[in-house]
Structures are given as structure tokens and as C-alpha cells.
């Protein structure tokens, strides 16, 4: 087995015992990227020299006898909406094609302090708006299980990089499912933490009240490792959770007897595909066999979550993206003679259709005549949804359901119909509205070999229970060890040629 194929927790002891050098480990990942990323197209930027320099620095430190740090030498793929000082950060937008942030996101500082090495910046839907990574202004990312299918989105690049062993660990961001849905489509583990658990400082804002950065990893143990490194109070994010946090790796025990797991009936509605339903049913049986109590519950307002989500997220996004005016950074259309038309033209040319759609929707729902009817009403519905969760968590320790109604769909299948694309997030959106954690773990494959994800949701700031249940489930199954077969032949694939 090559080093890039190892889980983080397998590679770490080898590095700390100096059985392999960090440079070897990083080189292995870089080799894999050059071998396969022309097909997968997971990365917008590969930080080859940076990674090798950091690797040599780490080796020098280890050689001096310094102890290995918690994530020493791990190659991390970072979603391209997370600011990296001196490293181009595009949010997959033409508008920020050449943007080099003057500062690091807090998570980047945490990862680097823990010894992780940024290997590259991954592709995504432009400004994290989308569910297939087809809204990237750069190029689409392909699903390593079947390159004709999408990897999910918006953190599709990070998900594809992890499953194709182009990274050891990855960061994604999740506003309405953008970690969990691609994790599910690519068959990896993805965790959206409780709102406020991980600092948003440096995350290019999409919907400020829901955005969270989280781990995307090969298994649950890696997920806990990364979460432990990035979670924690940050005075630079006013919404950051100030409480004490546990060591998440301590919850990785295979015993989950006595835990009550709720199954919201709203997550098993008519929109659920048969393949996912089957995999989910089997997963439930597995959980029951592990000794948990399964309980049917209801989140009566969950079916309105998608509507509330699109109102709130678009409103916040429209305002957040207003700063892209072509003055301090970004693209400027030079032909314009005055500020207003310069800005309007630059944005018209610089943003893709989905981003424009959300800006228009967001502006519409906040405009004077619609403000109360749409925006305020959505905020009230949000309260109802949060209350639903609170009520079920009085009797359940966590909830489970499918992560997405379907497995990864064909590229181009939903690009013409935004509403159909939005429906892909129908089960992942409610936790974002309520601020609770949600996680996707592999729970099966359909007949065509596409992975299915199990979503686990928990009480606010109770990531520990999610990890515990996920770990026990993972230990009892082998979905997480499967890998896509032989490298797909790029020449057989139509369209979506890499342009950057």
C-alpha cells in the first residue's frame, strides 16, 4: 500500500517513529495528484513547492528529536473558499481568479500548528453555491467512482481528493449540506460541526448564520483527529462557541449500547430513491444489532426547511458578496467609466449563473415589499425547525437518516433545473438552520457501485455522540475501506476539460 492510501491515523505513527519521512509521504500524495488529477480535477491549485518545503522543515524538526505534532506531516486538501495567506484562494470564481489573501483562516493556523501540510486548494461550486461542483467557474470535478457522475457539492473537490487518495485529509465547508452530500456521493466521512464550534474567520462567507468548516476524511477516527485540531473558541469569530471541548478521539469506542437513535419520518418521504432507502434500512438494522434503541420520530416542520434555507442563505449571500465590487481585490472590467457601471459589469461578467440567481433571489426577499413576507417569515420558520429538533432530542441521543435522497447523479443532469439541484440538499439543510451537527458516513453502495451516505445528527455541540455512533457503525461495516477501481481513462470522458 502506498503512503497516500493510508488513513491519517495509520500514517501518523509511521511519521512520528520516523519510519517514513514527511517528504516521502507528501511526495506520494503529489505523485498521485499528478497521476490522476488530470481526470478527477479535484484541485484548483496544487501547492507543490510549499508542501515540499514544509515537509522538509517537518523532517528537520523530527530529526532534531522534536516530538511529532498531532497531525504531523499529513497532506491536507483545503477547500478553495478558506483563506490561505500567500496562496491563491478563488472560491472557484472567475471573480477571485488571482486573489491572494493577506491572512490565514483560523483553521489553517490550527492545522499548520498541528503539523498538517497544505497540499492544495480544492474545487467547489462557485462561492459554495451548488450541490455538484458543476458551478465551479474553473472546471467540473469528476466522481472517482464513476467519472460521468458528479462528486456532489459544494465541497466536491475535497471529497474527490480524499476518496482518490490525492490527499490524506481534507477540509470542506457546509452551509446546507456541502460537506455531507459530497461525502455521501464519494463514500467518505464528512462532518458539519455545530454552528460556532469551528471558527469561520477566513472562510469566504456564503450564508454567515449557517456556514461551518469541517473535516472530510477517509474514516471516523481521522475525522475526530481533524476535528480536535480545528475546533475551539476563536475570539476572531463573534459566533464562536466559548465552552470547553472534549478530546473527540476518546469517544471512538465501538460500544453504543443504550443509545437512543431517532429516525425522522420526514427523511424517508417519497423523494427518497429506492437504492438509498435500501441501504439506509440495512444501516438501521446494523445499528439495532449494535444495541441502540431505534425510535420513530417526527420533525413536522422539516419539509419547509429547504424553502426557509433558500430565503435566508440567499439573503445573507447577496449581502456577503456585495463586497466584491472590483475596488480592493477581484476582477474589474476596465471599460467602465464610472463606479456603479464598473461594479455591475464586473459582477455580471465575473459571477456564474447560480451565484447571480442567488444574489437576485436574496435581494428580492430582502427588498422592502417582501422583507416580512419572505425573510422574516423564514427566520420564524427557522425557530420552528430548531424547536422540532429540541423536542426530539429530549428523547433521542441522535437522529439518523439518509444524507441525500439519491446517489451521485450524472454530470449535466440537473444543471438546467436549479430546483431539482436544490432538492439534493433536502435532508442536509435542517441541521444548518438549527445549528446542530450533522455527519455523513458510508453506509452502502447501489447496484452500480455508487456509495450511499448515512447522516447522523446530534444535539448542539454534541459532536462526541455523533462520532461515537459513527465509529461503532463503521467498525461493524467495511464500506469505508472500499476504493474506486482502476483509474478512469480521461479520453473516454466528454466535456469539462480542465482550463486552469
Amino acid at each position: 500500500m502506498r503512503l497516500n492510501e493510508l488513513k491519517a491515523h495509520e500514517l501518523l505513527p509511521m511519521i512520528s517513529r520516523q519510519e517514513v519521512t514527511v517528504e516521502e509521504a507528501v511526495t506520494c500524495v503529489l505523485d498521485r495528484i499528478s497521476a490522476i488529477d488530470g481526470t478527477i480535477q479535484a484541485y484548483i491549485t496544487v501547492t507543490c513547492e510549499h508542501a515540499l518545503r514544509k515537509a522538509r522543515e517537518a523532517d528537520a524538526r523530527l530529526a532534531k528529536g522534536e516530538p511529532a505534532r498531532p497531525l504531523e506531516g499529513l497532506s491536507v486538501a483545503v477547500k478553495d473558499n478558506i483563506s490561505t495567506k500567500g496562496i491563491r484562494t478563488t472560491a472557484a470564481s472567475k471573480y477571485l481568479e488571482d486573489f491572494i489573501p493577506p491572512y490565514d483562516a483560523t483553521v489553517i493556523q490550527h492545522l499548520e500548528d498541528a503539523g498538517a501540510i497544505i497540499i492544495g486548494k480544492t474545487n467547489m461550486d462557485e462561492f459554495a453555491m451548488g450541490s455538484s461542483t458543476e458551478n465551479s467557474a474553473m472546471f467540473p470535478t469528476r466522481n472517482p467512482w464513476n467519472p460521468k457522475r458528479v462528486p456532489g457539492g459544494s465541497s466536491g473537490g475535497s471529497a474527490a481528493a480524499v476518496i482518490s487518495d490525492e490527499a490524506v485529509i481534507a477540509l470542506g465547508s457546509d452551509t446546507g449540506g456541502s460537506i455531507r452530500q459530497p461525502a455521501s456521493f464519494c463514500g467518505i466521512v464528512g462532518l458539519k460541526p455545530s454552528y460556532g464550534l469551528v471558527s469561520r474567520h477566513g472562510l469566504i462567507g456564503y450564508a454567515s448564520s449557517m456556514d461551518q468548516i469541517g473535516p472530510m476524511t477517509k474514516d471516523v477516527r481521522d475525522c475526530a483527529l481533524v476535528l480536535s485540531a480545528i475546533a475551539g473558541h476563536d475570539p476572531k469569530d463573534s459566533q464562536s462557541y466559548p465552552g470547553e471541548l472534549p478530546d473527540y478521539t476518546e469517544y471512538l469506542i465501538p460500544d453504543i449500547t443504550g443509545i437512543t437513535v431517532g429516525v425522522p419520518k420526514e427523511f424517508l418521504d417519497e423523494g427518497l430513491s429506492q437504492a438509498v432507502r435500501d441501504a439506509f434500512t440495512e444501516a438501521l438494522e446494523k445499528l439495532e444489532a449494535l444495541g441502540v434503541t431505534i425510535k420513530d420520530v417526527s420533525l413536522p416542520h422539516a419539509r419547509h426547511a429547504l424553502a426557509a434555507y433558500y430565503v435566508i442563505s440567499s439573503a445573507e449571500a447577496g449581502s456577503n458578496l456585495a463586497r466584491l465590487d472590483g475596488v480592493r481585490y477581484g476582477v474589474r472590467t476596465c471599460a467602465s467609466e464610472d463606479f456603479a457601471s464598473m461594479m455591475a459589469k464586473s459582477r455580471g461578467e465575473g459571477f456564474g449563473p447560480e451565484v447571480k440567481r442567488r444574489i437576485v433571489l436574496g435581494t428580492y426577499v430582502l427588498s422592502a415589499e417582501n422583507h416580512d413576507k419572505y425573510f422574516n417569515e423564514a427566520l420564524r420558520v427557522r425557530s420552528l425547525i430548531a424547536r422540532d429538533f429540541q423536542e426530539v432530542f429530549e428523547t433521542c441521543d441522535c437522529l439518523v437518516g439518509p444524507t441525500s435522497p439519491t446517489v451521485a447523479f450524472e454530470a449535466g443532469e440537473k444543471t438546467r433545473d436549479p430546483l431539482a439541484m436544490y432538492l439534493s440538499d433536502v435532508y442536509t439543510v435542517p441541521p444548518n438552520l438549527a445549528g446542530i451537527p450533522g455527519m455523513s458516513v458510508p453506509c452502502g453502495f447501489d447496484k452500480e457501485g455508487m456509495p450511499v451516505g448515512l447522516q447522523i445528527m446530534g444535539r448542539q455541540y454534541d459532536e462526541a455522540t455523533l462520532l461515537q455512533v459513527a465509529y461503532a457503525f463503521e467498525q461493524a461495516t467495511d464500506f469505508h475501506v472500499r476504493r474506486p477501481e482502476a483509474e478512469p481513462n480521461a479520453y473516454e470522458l466528454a466535456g469539462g476539460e480542465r482550463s486552469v
Partner: protein
Amino acid sequence: MKITKEDVARISVLARLELDEDSQSQFVEQLSGILKVINALDELDTSGMNQTISPAGLTNVLREDIALPSIAPEEALSNAPDREGAFFKVPRILDVD
């Protein structure tokens, strides 16, 4: 409520976002579909519900009034599409506030 082409045109001005004819018509259709879903919120009785602005539930998050070094002007300006000396340069401003 239905969204019209006039709405889209008006909003594109309000949002400083130039849209060509084609995308305007396309948006009218797509957004009408999305609004149909959103209008379902009307079915709910939300009377007496608070507005959840943020799920964090924190209050009074403050920092001490201490001035710390800023970033270097060169760094601040390094991404500027246009500059003059240490200033960001913009085309003239027609609408005066």
C-alpha cells in the same frame, strides 16, 4: 407572488449586477419556480415565534479596546485591480450620497 421581468430588472440594478436579456428571462422562469416552493411557508402558523437570526445563541461578545498593528499598506493593496500610490483607485462616482 410571481416574479416578473420588471422585478428581475429592478433587482439587478439594486444588486449592482448586470444581467443580459437571456439570463433575465431565464431567471424569471427559474425564480418563479423557486418562489413557488418558498410560498409554501405561508401555510405555517408562525405567530408568536421569534426570529432565529443565528443558532449560536450567544450575547455580548466583545473585545477589549486595544489597538494592534495593522497589515502593511502594500499587503492591503496587493490585490487591487487599480491603485495610485497607496490609494485604491476607482472610476468616478456618479451617484452622490
